[in-house]
């Protein structure tokens, strides 16, 4: 009760703050910081550094070290967020989450897909500004309203997708948004000199006048870090920074992280890879389903315990697959590899073999970057002929180089992003439902609107779609109903094999249950299902068998009942000793 009241107070305080114009707010902030930093209140005021744009790193870190020796542990807290609750519509993605980053530590933020890690980071980085809770940066309550503002407060995020502008030079990128000008003209030489300084600090020797896109992704990441340092970032958040790096590059990044630690920065590190977490974490905070589970020193949280923290939730007993209707083998993949970026690049999926029988649900587990979605798309023909290996559908060898061929063979792929690749939001429900089956519905090319309507009506009522009219644009529907339209499109072509990629993503619990029920019905009709889901209970409850992928490789297989959340997650994170991962060794 007490807590709620405080939260509310914060909230009103926040609103008040927001009602002021931003310039005023920032100015006020800077004043406060200047005040705090004048009497020797140890240099935790990281925003203070933000003011001195030209302050050299070594200069800054010297004073930091001096301050640190005096500082108590508590005083070294750079960022503290507490009681963060964030909703998207009626879905709560963060509930009372908290995080504390200290100077000179690597703080790993761990959790399954959808645990709320990215949302928390985005709140800290000023991307999401509507939330409940409190952010303290070096002891001051601050609410960054834009990424730029978060930047000037000393927070930098190195995203999975880098935020560099590829066609601009390294120097221009480092000074993006705060160009050094004289009389309105960019001081190019001065910028380049300073950019070289920052780049050299990271042990990198490149021509800063070259466009960023010429450099490999690992170098681009370092440029991003240089950009952060040049803005006096004190808290650097890295969101799966190693996902695109090879082993030596990962080593270099880890050296750099060590160097950042020594200079008193706090590093927030998000990773799905156990070996990385074990190597670099000082402290670990675990989120699960948007809730804070705990924070502990890395040595107190060995892998099994960490995994238990990540998955240990109450199972929802409401849904449970009742019967196994397995028939003959529907699909067999042998040594299937997928090369979405061309054969010269690393494959997203490497030599995966699997089989699924009619009426069976084969769950595919794996964390982000496991290659499960790419496996679906590769076999479905989305990447053209960029695949290797053999596939047998009902015993006959097939090879799809276009989605159309797969659809004609009775295969349907429900993609994991209904807005980007599932639905045409500007078209009516009827048009979306009949999109994949239009050739059969329009013999000779001429459409039969009445037949289309009847078909759409039949399928949508089967799926219990709630819409005022089938003529509504798909974009006007709620998430759950949109998902049903996407599913209806595939049922309309009467598939014998369904590839479901996150069929319940972003929909409410009621709609989820209905989709589970439908999957039960489909398997009873003999349809085989391959299921990708990032929700562990869903994977365990729905699948008759589970295979787990780790970085594009087969990691483990479990039969129904043998799979435990801990074992599946351990395999997905590559810490299964029986299946050595490709992590750093390659």
């Amino acid at each position, binding site marked *: 009760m007490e807590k709620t009241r405080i939260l509310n107070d914060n909230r009103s305080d926040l609103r008040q703050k927001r009602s002021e114009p931003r310039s005023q707010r920032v100015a006020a902030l800077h004043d406060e910081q200047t005040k705090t930093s004048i009497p020797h209140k140890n240099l935790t005021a990281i925003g203070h550094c933000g003011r001195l744009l030209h302050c050299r790193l070594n200069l800054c870190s010297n004073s930091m070290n001096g301050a640190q020796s005096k500082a108590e542990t508590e005083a070294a807290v750079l960022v503290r967020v507490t009681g963060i609750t964030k909703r998207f519509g009626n879905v709560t993605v963060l509930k009372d989450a908290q995080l504390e980053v200290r100077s000179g530590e690597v703080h790993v933020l761990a959790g399954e897909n959808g645990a709320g890690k990215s949302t928390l980071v985005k709140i800290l980085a000023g991307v999401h500004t509507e939330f409940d809770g409190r952010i303290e940066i070096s002891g001051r309550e601050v609410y960054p309203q834009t990424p730029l503002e978060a930047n000037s407060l000393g927070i930098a995020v190195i995203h999975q997708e880098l935020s560099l502008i590829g066609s601009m030079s390294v120097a221009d990128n480092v000074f993006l948004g705060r160009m050094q000008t004289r009389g309105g003209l960019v001081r190019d030489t001065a910028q380049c000199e300073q950019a070289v300084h920052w780049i050299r600090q990271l042990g990198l020797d490149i021509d800063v006048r070259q466009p960023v896109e010429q450099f490999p992704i690992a170098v681009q990441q370092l440029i991003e870090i240089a950009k952060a340092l040049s803005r006096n970032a004190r808290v650097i958040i890295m969101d799966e920074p190693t996902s695109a790096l090879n082993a030596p590059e990962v080593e270099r990044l880890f050296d750099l992280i060590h160097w950042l630690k020594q200079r008193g920065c706090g590093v927030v590190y998000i990773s799905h890879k156990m070996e990385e977490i074990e190597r670099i974490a000082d402290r670990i905070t675990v989120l699960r389903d948007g809730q804070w589970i705990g924070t502990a020193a890395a040595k107190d949280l060995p892998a099994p315990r960490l995994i238990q923290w990540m998955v240990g939730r109450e199972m929802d007993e409401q849904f449970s697959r009742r019967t196994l209707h397995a028939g003959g083998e529907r699909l067999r993949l042998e040594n299937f590899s997928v090369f979405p970026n061309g054969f010269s690049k690393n494959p997203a999926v490497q030599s995966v073999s699997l089989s699924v029988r009619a009426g069976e649900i084969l769950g595919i587990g794996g964390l982000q970057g496991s290659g499960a979605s790419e496996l679906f798309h590769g076999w*479905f023909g*989305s990447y053209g002929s960029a695949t290797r290996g053999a596939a047998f559908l009902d015993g006959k060898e097939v090879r799809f180089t*276009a*989605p*159309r061929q*797969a*659809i*004609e063979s009775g295969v349907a*792929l429900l*993609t994991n992003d209904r807005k*980007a*690749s*599932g*639905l*045409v*939001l*500007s*078209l009516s429900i009827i*048009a979306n439902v009949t*999109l*994949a089956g*239009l*050739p059969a519905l*329009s013999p000779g*090319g*001429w*459409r039969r609107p009445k037949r289309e309507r009847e078909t759409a009506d039949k399928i949508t009522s089967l799926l219990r779609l709630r819409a005022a009219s089938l003529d509504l644009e798909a974009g006007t529907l709620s998430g759950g109903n949109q998902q049903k339209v996407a599913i209806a*499109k595939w049922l309309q072509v009467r598939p014998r094999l369904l590839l479901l990629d996150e069929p319940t993503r972003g929909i409410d619990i009621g709609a989820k249950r209905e989709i589970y029920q439908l999957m039960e019905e489909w398997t009873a009709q003999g349809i085989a299902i391959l299921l990708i889901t990032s929700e562990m209970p869903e994977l365990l409850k729905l699948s008759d068998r589970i295979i787990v992928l780790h970085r594009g490789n087969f990691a483990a297989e479990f039969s129904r009942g043998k799979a435990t959340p801990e074992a599946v997650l351990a395999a997905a994170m590559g810490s299964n000793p029986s299946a050595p991962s490709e992590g750093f060794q390659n």
Partner: protein
Amino acid sequence: MTVDSKTGADNLLKRVVTSPAGRAFLALLLVLIIGAIFNADGAFFKIGTHRDTLRQASVYGILACGMTLVIISGGIDLSVGSVLALVAVCCAQTAIHWNWSAWLVAPACLLIGGCCGGVSGFVAARLGVQPFIATLSMMVLARGLAKYASGGMKVSTAIMNADGTFRYVEVPRLFRVVDHRILGGNLSVVTLIFAACVAVAWVLMSKHRWGRYLYAIGGNEEASRLSGIPVVAAKTLAYVASGIFAAVAGICQAAQEQQGDPEAGMGYELMAIAMVVIGGTSLMGGRGGIGLTLLGVLTIGYLDKILSINAVPEAGRLVLTGIIIVVAVLTQRRRRT
């Protein structure tokens, strides 16, 4: 009771204002009302005025039909003006100088237009060049071909003899038929051809599978591809269709001018795009329709006519038309809900 009827009227007004068709219709109505007020001493109420308006808007309108298909598929076709000129030249050359029969001239012209569209479609859809660039190249290329085929001069009924004197041949039958008026001189054949083009395009877009494909591709190309739609073929065909409509417009242009002018159709592509956009078809693709384009064609056609019968000089006419296009498009913009 009175309250009910009032809200009913409000709802009707709201429906009209929120639907693209309703807004396009309101714009046309507004232009017609302006015409009725500034009627230039009754000139606006003469049937001849309307006949001329429709006749003058027809060539643009035919281009706009093809343009609508391409824009709905998420592309744009800048080459239609040049293709029109190329076809006009070829049409004049074959019909006047080579004395081909109309039954041969027309299909040959449509073939030329279709081929031009096919090439820009191939470059845009198959090779993945941005439609703006692909059709810009075709715009320059077709203009060059038109000048090459005509030797840089207008292809007319005046034929130079070996001794440098001119002899005049008869205007071919194809030209006379297309430039004819029917119903006691109250309706141009060109307008009928425009109406036929609208009908064909409407049937394709709303009754044929291919039309649905174009809407889907314009709305979400990736989802369309993953739903098994032959995206490349459907998009290429949209450009082919646009080329064929441009060829029809070229024949009409040649017939009206009784010559093939390699400089014809300059800037027509922009007028066609303006008509499509004023109708309410989205340049982003996926939304719109032929009916809307028809309203857009009439709006701009009447606007131009009203300004000209009120003796507004051409300079002022262009300035006003530009302003009105912007205002119309601003009111058409979808409001975020």
